[in-house]
């Protein structure tokens, strides 16, 4: 019985791991769509904000503020509205984990 449980737990763990790996690839693809302006993996060229290694919570707050209009912008308020809050959190997590 214990062995059974352990095996089940292992299978569940393995599958969850795969699901997360798949999600991680999806989030990497979503984040790559920001790189045109913010640099590959968020390491920007001069004149644009670098996202790599930036604090996740700060990025999420900023994006949500763009989305609601609390923070004024030239273009980011229009782009932020294209993403769900969950997508913003996931993408911010990706950039926060990148080397500066």
């Amino acid at each position, binding site marked *: 019985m214990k062995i059974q449980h352990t095996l089940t737990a292992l299978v569940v763990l393995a599958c969850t791991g795969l699901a997360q790996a798949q999600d991680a690839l999806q989030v990497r693809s979503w984040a790559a769509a920001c790189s045109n302006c913010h640099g590959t993996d968020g390491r920007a060229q001069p004149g644009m904000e670098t996202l790599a290694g930036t604090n996740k919570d700060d990025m999420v707050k900023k994006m949500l503020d763009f989305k609601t209009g609390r923070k004024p912008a030239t273009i980011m308020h229009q782009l932020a509205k*294209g993403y769900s809050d969950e997508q913003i959190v996931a993408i911010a997590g990706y950039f926060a984990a990148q080397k500066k």
Partner: protein
Amino acid sequence: MQRRHILQAGSALGALGLLSGCATPASGKGPKVVVIGAGYAGATAAKYIRMWSEGAIAVTLVEPNDSFISCPISNLVIGGSKVMADITTPYDNLSRRHGVQMVKDRVASIDAAKRIVKLAGGSELPYDRLIVSPGVDFMWESLPGMNKPGAQDKVLHAWKAGAQTVALRKQLEAMPDGGVFAMSIPMAPYRCPPGPYERACQVAEYFSKAKPKSKVLILDANDDVTSKGPLFKKAWAERYKGILEYRSKHRVVDVDAATNTLKFEFNDDIRASVLNVIPNMRAGDVAVHAGLATANKRWCEVDFLTFESKAAPNVHVLGDAIQIAPLMPKSGHMANQHGKVCAAAVVALLTGKQVNAMPIYNNTCYSFVSSEDVVHVASVHRYDAEKKTMLTVPGSGGVSSAANELEGRYAMAWARNIWADTLA
């Protein structure tokens, strides 16, 4: 099914482990990808496949040009506020930093059944997956006079940045004050919807400073300005009154290059000092000759999850050559996005992983209404599983409230960043 996924993932990881390291050159083992065309889409796809496969997939990039010359910002060269060096980037980082094998050649033909690309130079490149990113070519058959000897050297399009960009600038410099620059715009869809209107602004600004008695005449086949209409019209009225004139519903049907005359479907002939004819466009020759242009024989239909051609398996088509999704512009920014979605899909397909079922990406497009002030249009596009296409996300996107200098600085930062994301 789960077990199979685990096994596939395991073998894929093994394959990756064998060939880790970014600059691993293309070797005999492992999957092979050939990319045709090193523009915004093709170069991006090549770089990202190398990055995301951690060097496990060999990538050969076929490109006849010596270096990358950007169409975005090239209108500023025509207006005189930038020079060619400002819009030119070498290709060497793709090979040096990412291990992309660059081949300077033209493609003679594609054998999709045998999975071989034949080059003009005689060599053959086998592939597991092929990415065709040829940009656009022009439908000269719709303008008979442009097929006469010398006509295309005299009446320029300058719609592929390069030698024609320089040549058009020289024609404007040589034009006496009091002359007319007439530009014709084809029916949409064409590469870079706001590009002609930006160019008109750049030439008008040059005239206002250097040749104040001269005129810019825009002859648009479309019913109205196809992009950022109110913003361009405001700029023309406020900044270029008396210099720039816009006429819609002027469809060019022929050109007499000898007398610099445009002939229209319904309107009187127009003769100008400098003509700039932007012809009708279709997918690049390579794609058309390979039978990939299935939409009206002009554009290539693709699956938007992978950019795989609907006409040929294992062949992907990117950038301006594709049959676009609703409200998806033919832009450099969008082409770079295609490159990354395709790169992720190709890596997944060649390593036994699942393709991302929900791509989301954006377009941002800046237009200079003077050498410093800029207007933008932005949009966010999301895959719709039911309609199997990309649709704009409701409530997202928009345009500038007015032309401004801050966005002029952002536009140049955009250029630096997208050039680096594509090529560095």
